[in-house]
């Protein structure tokens, strides 16, 4: 236990004491999602207000979220009723600390999601809650610089680079925007988009010759990227400010731009490389920790969250899409429409090459991401030799795969035992 953990433990113990005397009946919904104030408020007022029992919705950063959860699990008594988090957050937990949810009678429409939710065990450890993805967005002013013959809904990486170069030349400023800031989701671009599109894999092909090409393309794209991108984490801000005209990001991190000025921006699918149009879903889930004070009430809340009408309300509040079959109403916010169309085109593209979220990495998810972020920083920012960096980072990646024994996930070819780095 670090010093921070102890302080946090004491603080949360005090908080527990206070909340226990304050509102005893409320179920504590402890979440890493819908963190921005407006989203959290929308969750409380529009999504959770329809639940028969009281709910105390508390979103937090991943670190504090985990610290409190671990403190409760270690002490054996808790106040958290329901957990809301990303697949990767749950994957880092011990499945024994989560109550099996097979008997709940609710699950996602996608069997892939339901399999992921078992976290490598035979039982549902969490229930898929909502999904999103990463897409591209552009300022309409950039459209006139599209390369000749390019279809914005079926771009290739080469066309994207050319487009960014055209804009760069015309405006005198690099206008491609990439979320490479401290809180940016750049690693997902490498894992779910760049690598699948160029190498048809992520782990096996990490240091392949195709990967060298991919990083060369990344360098080219970077030369037309706003260098302040290393401070960008939510690309909606740069779209709105005009610092970036063409961007890549998580749908919910672009939503504000579309909702505020829907006529100024377009959303479109991620580009395609030689091995297809790689893209990756984002999956959030609901789970119940074994220390939940009232398991039945928590299960009731999870069931409520999975109802079609609640899922649509959640979509409005968070810009995350339903995981159950629902008929989407017509009056959705502009961001939802734009993102929904782009995702639909991306998945329906003839060259679609969908990847899965990293699975089976347990608490090594952060280390796995760091391999990709480090590779980016060394190759693109520090300008080191691609082949040398890949060969060095490859050893760290292989070590992580060996330690966790995680088998390959799509688009890597299946493996027996730990996924090999070839």
């Amino acid at each position: 236990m670090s010093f921070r953990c102890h302080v946090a433990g004491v603080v949360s113990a005090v908080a527990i004491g206070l909340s226990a005397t304050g509102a005893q009946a409320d179920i504590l919904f402890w979440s890493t999602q819908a963190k921005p104030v407006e989203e959290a408020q929308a969750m409380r007022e529009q999504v959770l207000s329809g639940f028969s029992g009281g709910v105390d919705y508390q979103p937090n950063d991943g670190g504090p979220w985990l610290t409190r959860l671990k403190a409760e699990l270690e002490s054996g008594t808790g106040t958290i009723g329901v957990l809301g988090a990303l697949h990767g957050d749950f994957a880092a937990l011990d499945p024994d600390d989560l109550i099996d949810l097979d008997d709940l009678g609710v699950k996602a429409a996608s069997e892939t999601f339901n399999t992921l939710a078992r976290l490598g065990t035979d039982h549902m450890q969490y229930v898929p809650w909502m999904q999103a993805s990463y897409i591209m967005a552009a300022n309409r002013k950039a459209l006139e610089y599209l390369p000749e013959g390019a279809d914005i809904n079926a771009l290739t990486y080469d066309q994207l680079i050319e487009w960014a170069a055209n804009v760069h030349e015309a405006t005198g400023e690099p206008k491609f925007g990439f979320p490479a800031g401290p809180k940016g989701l750049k690693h997902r671009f490498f894992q779910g988009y760049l690598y699948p599109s160029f190498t048809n894999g992520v782990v096996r092909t990490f240091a392949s010759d195709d990967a060298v090409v991919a990083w060369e393309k990344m360098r080219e794209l970077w030369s037309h990227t706003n260098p302040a991108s290393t401070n960008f984490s939510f690309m909606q801000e740069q779209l709105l400010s005009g610092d970036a005209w063409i961007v890549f990001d998580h749908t919910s991190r672009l939503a504000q731009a579309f909702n505020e000025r829907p006529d100024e921006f377009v959303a479109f699918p991620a580009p395609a490389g030689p091995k297809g149009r790689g893209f990756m879903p984002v999956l959030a889930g609901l789970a119940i920790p074994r220390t939940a004070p009232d398991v039945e009430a928590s299960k009731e809340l999870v069931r409520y969250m999975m109802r079609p009408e609640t899922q649509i309300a959640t979509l409005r509040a968070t810009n995350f899409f339903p995981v159950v079959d629902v008929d989407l109403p017509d009056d959705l916010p502009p961001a939802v429409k734009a993102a929904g169309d782009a995702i639909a085109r991306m998945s329906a593209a003839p060259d679609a090459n969908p990847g899965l979220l990293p699975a089976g990495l347990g608490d090594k998810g952060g280390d796995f991401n760091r391999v990709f972020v480090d590779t980016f920083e060394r190759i693109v920012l520090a300008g080191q030799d691609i082949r040398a960096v890949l060969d060095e980072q490859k050893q760290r990646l292989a070590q992580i795969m060996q330690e966790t024994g995680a088998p390959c996930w799509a688009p890597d070819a299946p493996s027996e035992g730990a996924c090999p780095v070839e």
Partner: protein
Amino acid sequence: MNARLLPYILILPVTLFLCLFFLYPFVLVAAQAFTTGDGFSLENFREVVGYWKFPISLKNTLLLAAAVVPVQLALALLMATMVNRMRRGRDLVLYIWTIPLGISDLAAGMIWLAIFEQSGFLNTILGAVGAIDRPVNFLSYQHMGVVFLAIALAEIWRATAIMLVILVAGIGLIPKEYYEAAEVFGAGPWQRFRRITLPLLRPSLQTALVLRVILAFEVFAVVAALGGTLFPVLMSETYAYQFDLLDSGAAAAMALIILAISIASTLVILRVLRVPKGASI
């Protein structure tokens, strides 16, 4: 109440507090740093030291301390001497100079970010006087020198006051008689400063330097605000181990490394600025 016991009873609450909230967590952190799943090991240290960013973050931290602390020392000495000479408005000036002390490091970082960022004050001013055509992005990976300078400036602005306060108190303790005697013998201001103020200020200089240098090794929020991930320092790496990689063992090892550097520099400062026995004021 037994008069001999009283002092011990009075410091008991503080001692208990320190044991509970400092010593006990410290022992736990140390234990965590030196153990992995299977008992005692140096694996955590091997991992953090072997990571390619470790030499860079160590270098950045030391460079920053080496650049910031001497400037702060000189500034604080100058300011303390000036304050000491003032007859009127002394308290007011002291209050104003110590305002940055009341601002959290993160807030200080944000203030300087507002100056240096692409749409910040500096760009606006440079644009208004016609020095630049379009806003320049100062805090980018292409201008590492500017990033360093911005962080150093913010640190100097924020933390000079802590040295100032200690030095002002120290100068106040130096008896006026020494200065009067020196003046009688014809010593100029510079001589008086070098031969009287500096030597007699040693104990305060010690305290001020130890405090400031330790804080310099722990620099974090200002760097995070201005440099993001561009400028890794030891503390930001510690944070990344704890909260991004969820590796408390490695974070604990980093914390101990920072502690070791702090202790080493403290010993050096204490040794260099030691007051000879019996030579107190």
